[in-house]
């Protein structure tokens, strides 16, 4: 059974110019312990999808789905209280800017202590104090912070970007969640720090038996440990599947473009030559193309594309396109 099973999730909201559909029939499945990367440029709906999972969407929005299941339980059928209980127990999230998320007025030790479930610490008052401190130190070790004594006493502003993100990860894993959603945790970090955080997330997935949904804007930033990857564009799922397969033989023109636009691909071009890019800009919500939303920017688009493509499968890949690339010779 999938830990998370989303089928045809649609989110609509009323804007100043009428109703807009910000997520359009998005499906995504996540297994226990799976590391999954969700790739899409800004505005594609990645964060909304994450919010739908943890249940913090604006109640005025229209959320429909054939399925939004957590461990086989229907999240949409639950009361807000039931949902909060599940989110609080099983899920955690980290963000791009750890400093915006950490409490500026509390030390690292205080913030991590607060995140440790009360039930974890037992015994006499004194024993509990020592126990808490050991647990905080342990959590810091697990996120790769060795000089924990010094870090514990620090306030967030005293920390470097990488350490601050590690602290927010320590807080996130304190209650041993089944799913960690990392919303662009390394965008704008320098390469060595980024690499550390990525390696750490991959390692934690294994050691904590925790699923990780990594949200990123660039295929170059997906986790080395990613088993599956999904690509989202303008609220529509473009392609998902086995990472190696998808990156080696993308079926979808968007995946293909994202690969060619990655930094790694640039390294192979002549200096100062023009870089491959999708033409035009992401459409505004008011002017979403009908059918396949990539249409106006897609080099392969044809008349048929005004009808939304249904999902198709090819080995370990699923994609939504009328004219797929890299088809196996038959």
């Amino acid at each position, binding site marked *: 059974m999938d830990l998370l099973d989303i089928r045809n999730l649609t989110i609509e909201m009323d804007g100043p110019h009428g109703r807009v559909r910000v997520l359009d029939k998005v499906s995504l499945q996540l297994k226990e312990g799976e590391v999954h990367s969700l790739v899409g*440029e*800004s505005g594609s709906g990645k964060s909304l999808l994450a919010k739908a999972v943890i249940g913090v969407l604006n109640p005025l929005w229209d959320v429909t789905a054939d399925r939004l299941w957590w461990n086989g339980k229907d999240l949409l059928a639950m009361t807000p209280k039931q949902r909060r209980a599940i989110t609080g127990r099983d899920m955690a999230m980290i963000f791009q800017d750890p400093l915006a998320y950490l409490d500026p007025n509390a030390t690292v030790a205080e913030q991590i202590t607060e995140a440790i479930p009360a039930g974890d610490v037992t015994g006499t008052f004194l024993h509990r104090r020592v126990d808490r401190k050991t647990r905080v130190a342990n959590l810091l070790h697990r996120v790769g912070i060795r000089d924990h004594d010094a870090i514990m006493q620090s306030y967030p502003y005293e920390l470097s970007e990488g350490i601050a993100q590690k602290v927010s990860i320590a807080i996130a894993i304190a209650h041993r969640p089944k799913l960690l959603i990392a919303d662009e945790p390394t965008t704008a970090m320098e390469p*060595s720090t980024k690499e550390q955080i990525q390696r750490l997330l991959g390692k934690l997935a294994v050691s904590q038996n925790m699923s990780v949904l990594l949200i990123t*804007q660039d295929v170059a930033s997906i986790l080395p440990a990613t088993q599956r990857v999904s690509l989202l564009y303008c609220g529509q799922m473009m392609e998902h599947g086995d990472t190696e397969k998808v990156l080696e033989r993308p079926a979808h023109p968007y995946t293909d473009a994202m690969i*060619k636009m990655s*930094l790694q691909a640039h390294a192979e071009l002549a200096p100062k030559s023009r870089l491959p*890019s999708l033409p035009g800009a992401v459409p*505004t919500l008011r002017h979403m193309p009908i059918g396949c939303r990539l249409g106006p920017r897609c080099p392969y688009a044809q008349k048929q594309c005004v009808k939304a493509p249904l999902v198709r499968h090819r080995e370990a890949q699923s994609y939504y396109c009328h004219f797929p690339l890299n088809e196996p010779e038959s």
Partner: protein
Amino acid sequence: MSHLLEAVDLFKTFRPRRAWPWSKKSVALEPTSFTLEAGETLAIMGETGSGKSTLSKIIAGVEAPSGGELYLNGQKLNYAQSKRRCQNIRMVFQDSDKSLNQQLTVGQQLEEPLLFNRDMPSSERNQLINSTLRKVGLLAEHAAFYPHMLSTGQKQRVAIARAIILDPQIVVADEALVALDPSVRAQIINLMLDLQKDMGISYIIVTHSPQIVKHIADKILILYRGKMIAFNETERLLTEKQQPYVETLLHEHLTNHSQITGNSSAKVTE
């Protein structure tokens, strides 16, 4: 012939603050000299806290140096004399959220530098605003948007639009590219390359992406704890043996999927 830009022993000192190995490094800049010609791109590299932003802010006149001189076309620039520099050296900041005014529409933010520096009728201003918005991959209708209605990538484009709207000789971009969406980033880099080819514009970019540096920079300046430890042509820095710190910065490959460029299909769009 004078250089487009020449820095002679620029330096900056800060009051020392509490510095532990794990804390943010306190930034200072030791005397730094370099030159930049018209149509060239200089990349400033170095780890976080090495003084990259300090140097770029001094060049753009956003921060005063503690000493040293800066010459534009052979003429000395004073920190106080900001108007000439303001037109000729424009800066794009790392965090477009902080550098854009949340109370003004995109159109108003682009109009501001025009009102201060150009004498043109409002119809012409609007035309220039529209064409600049399109240049950076936005739509004319975005002029009516407030920053909060835009995505991060779109806000960064507005910041870039504001920098190029005055046709400056030098654009200083502090980490402006790295957080952009891939398609926007590629478009902006192409746009920067086009502007450079057409108008001989020069760039000083601060970035930690070796891939971007290799693609667009003619020269690289490397800082280590506030000290310039290398300044040379990209070509030479890449081909000749360098000290380990320089090597890591230049050759650090973002992890994983090195096969990412694999056998994806042949059609390439522009």
